[in-house]
């Protein structure tokens, strides 16, 4: 039997257990989209290719599988680039399938030609330009392997139209080989060294990052912390790996971290850093970051080791395997801390917690933090939260208390406005029975607002909570603090009426202006079936605190 390139591609996707992709058609991918009629794979038709990439990204974060998107050549492909960089920065496994002009026209400025492998070379883990129909199946196999193993990341496959139209005898297809796993170097000795160091600590802290979530190591982490009784803080990307309801939880650290997490980091003597890359939003001034600490750094990517923070013990390994070894070693009883060694430290940490808890003042207007607190209460902490970027994102991280991994979906590394809504769509596809809420700003939500149509038409009942402050709030906050309150181009007066906009898309729109309306409306919105846009008009000039000024050390925080 003869098989067409497009058919081989979809068979290869099916072999990777792909059931849903996010895509948008065009001239060079007609054959691929036609194949949908014959395949089990279902496409969610987005309204912009950036949305497809973000949806695939969030789908991957929530499901733990590889997310897939499929777009046409030229502008279709270039529209995914922000989404690809976003996935690259946050190490999210996605496979992006792009159409391409005929292979014999490559480099000729043909209609809708873009050198997408060239463009995405620095922001993919790897990319492929398929040159022979025989290579399609193997390339898909390799792409999924590369995307999902080691430090995960996006992989792009560029598919010239003549190759996907080409036919080949099934019998002539080469056998697909399974890529070999890179062998892991044994790490038991380093683990012993790490635990010996930790057992001597008087002021220890555990700092976890996205690697724990991506490495599915949350259970192992919880088990370890139970044995060692050490306070835990996390980067934005690591939220949920350790339960926020645990008394040892310190909240997020960094620029908008809690007072007590930042104080603990600044005063600790041993730091166990797991699955982190010491991003500048976390460290702020590097030479003042945990200045007195011996650092144990666990990460799967050797590049992150000693790149920003010099470690005393480094373990190159995946978080789950490493923490398993930690737990086995702890079970031997050889690495227990002498009783009482950290008592003073735990008291100190508790005192910091009491001194400056996370908080805000109530007033005449709805407080954005209060909206999130109420959302947390009403959903009992069980919603999957996606966010846009800016103040809304930071308040979500501070005031929604995540107890489970893969329930907080946010653009950490790139800080991409417009991520939250398509991300909510991807998350809802991955978990049809969960409540998915996008916490948004009035600026960000307008960056991919067209995806409301995707949500409505695919019956994906995402809820959107807009913290509408009529400003590009986070930028306004910097202008307030560092540019003499000169609000240059951050006033968003003149935004559309979000209630009418929601209705125009076939969604439900609700609006609240007063604190006393807030909770009832939130309840109503969450209980209304289908897509709901909740427009909360909040205190326009509220700020996110604590805040570590750029370049300052972590213990030097603006608290109000």
């Amino acid at each position: 039997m003869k098989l067409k390139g497009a058919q081989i591609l979809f068979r290869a996707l099916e072999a990777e257990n792909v059931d849903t992709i996010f895509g948008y058609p065009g001239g060079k991918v007609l054959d691929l989209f036609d194949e949908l009629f014959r395949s089990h794979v279902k496409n969610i038709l987005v309204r912009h290719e950036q949305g497809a990439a973000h949806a695939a990204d969030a789908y991957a974060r929530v499901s733990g599988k590889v997310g897939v998107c499929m777009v046409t050549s030229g502008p279709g492909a270039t529209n995914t680039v922000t989404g690809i960089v976003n996935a690259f920065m946050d190490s999210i496994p996605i496979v992006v399938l792009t159409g391409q002009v005929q292979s014999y026209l490559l480099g000729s400025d043909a209609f809708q030609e873009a050198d997408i492998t060239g463009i995405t070379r620095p922001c993919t883990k790897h990319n492929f330009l398929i040159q022979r129909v025989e290579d399609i199946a193997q390339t898909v196999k390799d792409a999924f392997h590369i995307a999902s193993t080691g430090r995960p990341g996006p992989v792009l496959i560029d598919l010239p139209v003549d190759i996907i139209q080409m036919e080949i005898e099934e019998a002539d297809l080469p056998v697909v080989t399974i890529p070999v796993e890179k062998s892991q170097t044994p790490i038991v000795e380093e683990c012993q060294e790490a635990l010996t160091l930790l057992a001597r600590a008087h002021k220890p802290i555990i700092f976890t990052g996205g690697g724990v979530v991506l490495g599915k190591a949350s259970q192992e982490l919880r088990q370890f912390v139970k044995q060692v009784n050490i306070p835990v803080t996390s980067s934005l990307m690591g939220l949920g790996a350790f339960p926020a309801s645990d008394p040892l939880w310190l909240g997020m650290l960094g620029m908008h971290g809690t007072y007590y997490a930042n104080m603990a980091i600044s005063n600790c003597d041993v730091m166990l850093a797991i699955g982190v890359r010491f991003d500048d939003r976390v460290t702020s001034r590097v030479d003042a970051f945990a200045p007195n600490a011996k650092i144990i750094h666990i990460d799967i990517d050797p590049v992150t080791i000693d790149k920003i923070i010099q470690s005393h013990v480094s373990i190159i390994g995946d978080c789950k395997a490493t923490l398993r070894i930690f737990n086995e070693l702890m079970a031997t009883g050889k690495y227990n801390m002498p009783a009482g060694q950290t008592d003073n430290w735990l008291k100190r940490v508790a005192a910091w917690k009491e001194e400056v808890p996370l908080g805000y003042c109530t007033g005449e207007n709805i407080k954005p933090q209060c909206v999130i607190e109420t959302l947390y209460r009403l959903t009992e902490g069980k919603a999957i939260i996606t966010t846009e970027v800016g103040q809304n994102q930071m308040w979500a991280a501070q005031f929604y208390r995540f107890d489970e991994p893969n329930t907080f979906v946010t653009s950490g590394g790139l800080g991409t406005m417009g991520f939250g809504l398509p991300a909510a769509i991807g998350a809802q596809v991955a978990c049809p029975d969960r409540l998915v809420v996008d916490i948004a700003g009035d600026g960000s939500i307008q960056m991919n607002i067209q995806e409301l149509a995707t949500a409505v038409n695919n019956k994906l009942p995402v809820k959107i909570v807009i913290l509408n402050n009529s400003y590009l709030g986070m930028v306004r906050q910097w202008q307030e603090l560092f540019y003499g309150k000169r609000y240059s181009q951050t006033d968003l007066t003149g935004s559309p009426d979000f209630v009418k906009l929601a209705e125009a898309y076939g969604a439900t729109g609700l609006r609240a202006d007063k604190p006393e309306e807030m909770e009832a409306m939130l309840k109503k919105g969450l209980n209304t079936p289908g897509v709901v846009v909740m427009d909360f008009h909040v205190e326009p000039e509220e700020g996110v605190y604590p805040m570590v000024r750029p370049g300052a050390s972590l213990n030097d925080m603006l608290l109000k």
Partner: protein
Amino acid sequence: MTKIKEKTVSILVNNKPDVLARIAGVFSLRSFNIESISANVTKDPGKSKIILTTKGNQDTLMTIEKQINNLVDIIQVSDLTKIPSIRREMILIRLKVSTANQNSIIQVVEKLHGRVLSKEEGYWIVEVSGDVDEIDAILARFDKLGMDDFTRTGTVALEQIA
């Protein structure tokens, strides 16, 4: 922290059209210059060896080396500055020749175990190779002898089996 150092690395790669671009990308992202490069197929025609020299801050070079190692089509990266190895360059030099300098040229070429490859009217092309540390001295010498232009290969290098 900011010790500037020269480094020669040998990179064994799958022989794919974009592999050089990927390696170059890692350098350019950090604004690092590749000082010299030479590449060719190995005994196994599916694999190429790239010898590359660069200069810069040691810590960053270490990160770059690890980043290159992370690339998909890279098989092995070895730092030849850390292991005993022979590092050589070849130069082709065009000289303006007259009766006045002709004999000196022949003498120098012989001393350096080089060869005169072409003798067109008034212009000769000679070939010499040398240890990378000698190349600048060799060029200075020919400069005095009427060097018109030259081309140098990148460093080629091979580990010594200790």
